[in-house]
């Protein structure tokens, strides 16, 4: 038996994540073009890699492809995705320790988001 707020929260979380992912993705393309035109214009103030990683993760969490829609596989996949993206794009020791709990949180959010389907 699920309460209304559980359905509502799951829907809202997914909706917000999907839209935020799309917004960050659009922003990343625009910033990337600006950086190409004038190197340093963006990268001096913002980390483009981090924006891309956040956009991809949020977008996947918000609009999951069919195979990843099942709660446990989705949670595991998103946790691994966040950790791998973090370690690949931001290879320093601070992110190494940050990406693991972030991955776990992403997995948890995914799980909550998928509950509405069950």
């Amino acid at each position: 038996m699920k309460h209304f707020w559980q359905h509502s929260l799951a829907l809202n979380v997914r909706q917000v994540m999907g839209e935020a992912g799309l917004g960050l993705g659009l922003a990343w393309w625009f910033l990337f073009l600006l950086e190409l035109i004038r190197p340093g214009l963006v990268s001096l103030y913002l980390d483009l890699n981090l924006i891309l990683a956040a956009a991809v993760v949020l977008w996947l969490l918000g609009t999951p492809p069919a195979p990843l829609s099942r709660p446990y596989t989705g949670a595991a996949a998103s946790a691994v995705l966040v950790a791998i993206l973090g370690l690949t794009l931001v290879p320093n020791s601070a992110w190494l320790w940050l990406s693991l709990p972030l991955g776990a949180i992403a997995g948890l959010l995914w799980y909550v988001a998928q509950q509405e389907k069950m």
Partner: protein
Amino acid sequence: MKYVWHLRWILPAAVVMFIAWQTFFGTSPLTGSTDFVARTSLFQVLLPAGRVERVQPGMSLQTEPVYIDVRIPPRTVQVTLELTATPDSVPLQLGVRQGNGFEYLFKGQEIQGTGVRRYSLRATSFSYLEPGRRLRFIVSAPKLQPGSIVITGASVNIMRQGFSWAWLSRALASL
């Protein structure tokens, strides 16, 4: 919840406004540091790569000189570069490029540090910049033996002046 659908446009607009603000009006100091492992967008360190060797901790100079390029934003009025070296390193000279060719002003100073050698150079003239608006610093050590200098870290602090119409007209004229 209906406003959620605007997030896809709100976020790009907010990010672009942030960049525009930083480009035209932002005056907060920009700082960055590296231990030569983490990447930073502010500067490229110890070039060319073949003249240094990675050690733990830091980078060991094999031949000299080596260069450090700092990317500077619009309206920069002062750039301060600090280098730290191991205490048993031989003294080094820190300079900044002033013109085309080998025109460097060596005005870096050794400052007090506990357990490390620390050097600092404050640049306030930006008459010559490398392509991509990069200010070039030079690290030179005439008495260098391979491995006798180990640089363990570098940090940069960039100060910017406020917006002015004079700056804007100069910037537009240089486009």
